[in-house]
């Protein structure tokens, strides 16, 4: 078989498998629960990156399998190198092929970057917020403080509103993660962080600490309740307001010494 035939046969297999793969992947929902605008953007990115990965994966896999099947030396699996071993053709490289490989991979990468940058700005760019909550992490619990002074251990946010979360910690680094929202942000001592999220579905969703924070890390979970604005307002006005001067939390350094 001529080198050209080998390339064409393997190429045909590659094209078929790639197309099949992309058809299967397109339209998949990869993030299991999507309950926010951000999670929807991320799911879209997942599908696109998976679709782009398919031809890359297939290129290498088809190359490997084809070579293993067709370029195996006659006694290539015997113990030890056989006597009278025969070498392959002395090909040291192929300028055109190398240039094409470089150009295509560079273009793919730049395309992915542009796409990623757009998604990044959509998710993390500064936005006007409709609803503010302060998220306070500590070893090993979550607390939420609302604009009207109410504090809670479950996060209540309105649906279809831009929620601004300011995330704080006084002891170690934690990370606020609600999988269904597609948001994750570290809580850093001495350095409040912030994220925006727009919930698109009412319901109750689990949240958790994603950054190893010590013994209780595994159990540092929380609950997020998404309801319409009226329900959230009603909930907020029914909560007991703490005394105007909340007792300051003992800082871990003070208590530790």
């Amino acid at each position: 078989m001529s080198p050209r035939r080998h390339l064409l046969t393997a190429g045909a297999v590659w094209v078929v498998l790639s197309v099949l793969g992309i058809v299967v992947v397109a339209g998949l929902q990869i993030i299991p629960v999507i309950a926010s605008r951000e999670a929807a953007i991320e799911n879209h990115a997942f599908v696109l990156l998976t679709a782009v990965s398919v031809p890359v994966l297939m290129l290498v896999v088809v190359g490997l399998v084809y070579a293993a099947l067709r370029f195996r030396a006659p006694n290539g699996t015997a113990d030890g190198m056989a006597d009278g071993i025969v070498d392959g053709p002395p090909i040291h490289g192929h300028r055109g092929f190398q240039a094409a490989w470089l150009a295509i991979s560079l273009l793919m990468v730049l395309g992915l970057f542009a796409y990623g940058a757009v998604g990044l700005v959509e998710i993390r760019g500064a936005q006007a917020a409709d609803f503010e909550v302060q998220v306070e992490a500590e070893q090993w619990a979550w607390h939420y403080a609302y604009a009207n002074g109410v504090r809670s251990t479950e996060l209540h946010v309105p649906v279809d509103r831009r929620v601004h979360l300011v995330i704080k910690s006084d002891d170690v680094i934690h990370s606020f993660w609600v999988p269904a929202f597609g948001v994750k942000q570290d809580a850093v001592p001495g350095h409040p962080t912030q994220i925006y999220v727009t919930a698109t579905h009412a319901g109750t969703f689990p949240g958790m600490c994603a950054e190893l924070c010590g013994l209780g890390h595994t159990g540092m979970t929380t609950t997020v309740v998404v309801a319409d604005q009226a329900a959230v307002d009603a909930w907020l006005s029914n909560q007991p307001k703490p005394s105007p001067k909340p007792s300051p939390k003992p800082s871990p350094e003070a208590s530790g010494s």
Partner: protein
Amino acid sequence: MIATRVLAAARTFAPRSRSFVPRPGLPRAILGAIIGFALGGGLAAELKAEPGQMLALAYLFGLAGFLLGVGAFRFWLTWAVGREIDVAEEHAAHGRAGEWQRYFRFTTDHKVIGVQYLVTAFVLFFTAGTAAMFMRFELAQPGIATNKELYNTIMSTHGAMMITVALVSIIGGLGNYLVPIMIGARDMAFPKANALSYWMLPLAILLVAINPLLGGFDSGWTAYPPLSQQANLGQQAYLMAFVTVGVSSILSAINFLVTVFRMRAPGMSLMRMPIFVWALTVTAALALIATSVVAAAFTMLLFDRILGTAFFRASRGGDVILFQHLFWFYSHPAVYIMALPGLGAILEVVPVFARKPLFAYPLAVLSFISIGVMSFMVWAHHMFVSGMAEFFHIPIMLTTELISVPTGIVFLSALGTIWLGRIQFKVPMLWVFGFIWAFLIGGITGVFLADVPTDIALSDTAFVVAHFHYTIVGGTIFGLFAGTYYWFPKITGRMYNERLGRLHFWWFTLAFNATFIPMFWLGIEGMRRRVADYPAEFGTVNLFISIAAFNIALSVGVFAFNMIRSWKTGPVAESNPWQAQTLEWQIASPPPIQNFDEIPTVTATPYQYGSPRPAAAEGSSGS
């Protein structure tokens, strides 16, 4: 009081004038370590130091005592006091062929040091693997079967040890053994510094291994403050050990660079060097430049813990995120310090078993150099959700995605070499195929972590665990196995058992994929990393993963059995059983103590398969 008594005791053992420590060796090193440890500890007790300060002093003195005892400084100290060293003693330090004791001494022969590194790395690999088995036992079912604190400690220890394996196994083991021979030199440029870099490791490794006795540490190998500031003494043991490994790594990097740039045989131009040597050269440059950054970060963290500084204490003006920048500024290049030697080993094996020249050799060299340069510009992709400056996501995402272009060249070279070859499927070549698959999965899943929108969902999940196991096991461990089988006949003079090697490959590869493929799914479904427990719905998948992981351990048992048995009783190997063209195969197996009777002259790259030219070198000995 204690200190004075210890000092008195030390004086009796102290070296008398003339020669430093008459017969240096392992027993004396252990004695030195104990004396140093007692001295440091006693001094700290006298100064009424806190436990952390005491551990630091005891370790520093213990390390000094160990190195003095093993004889690491005797030549330098002799020079320092203005005396000439005894040539006979210097020769003796090089070791005599066939003498097993040289492996347990401060021996300056690079081949001995290579074997020391390699065996140490495999012992560490088995230990850290056992820790992984503990983790998989805990994770096999939802709920807590052992205990959370122990889990965090074992998880952190597994990471710390495996990182060390990945850092030292190929470069320290195979690199030390092979690089001088591959470039036609008789030894490394600085044999004594070479031995010193090895002998800094045993005590550091011991310190990590005993950290559970000191209360363990729960910060993971990344040691992020403030968690690592409040953790137990075991944390400090890890930090000090890692700084020691770093110093050793810098020493060995300098040695590699000088060796490669100054000691090549006539005709061995840079572009005729074996690709493995190129990989290690770039690796050494990375280790030299980057390691001091992490050593500084860990030292600052140590100071925060034991001297009351506040580099990373937010409450006193320190910056918590700064640590992460410093840490990853080393630890991302470190991923390439781990992977490049593996890539080099793989590309060295491919042409031999495909019986074809290495495809696009100059481009592969260029890609290694580009990876080296670019690896310094991507560190913050570990920090997309850390709260670092917002604009910084954009350039880091770009550079992280760009580095996949030179990394992709490795696939071009490997596939291009295999294509139209006449493939001999010996065990090293099987590992090459396994490597290409594993590193490919690692690379593709890496794109999802480089892209910020998907990374937000995946960061800190089991997906990341699966990804870095595919890159580091794929890049380093598959390369290490390929290289170990490939060079086994050269190093030991005997053949390994091909059947057991095949069994090891298939068992390991299937079990490895069965372990980590499901973790990608778990991560996407929302299972976090570094947790001892998880929601019940992930129970079945985790049980499957645990069973697969135990199979990895069993397959590694086959490897250990094969290596030990073949080293003792395997059939004697020819000097060049693979009919390869690099210089190490042109001399006897195992190589004579000075490698070459006559330094060869090199006329071409060692990849002239299929060409009428019979070999790339002339005038070498022992063939």
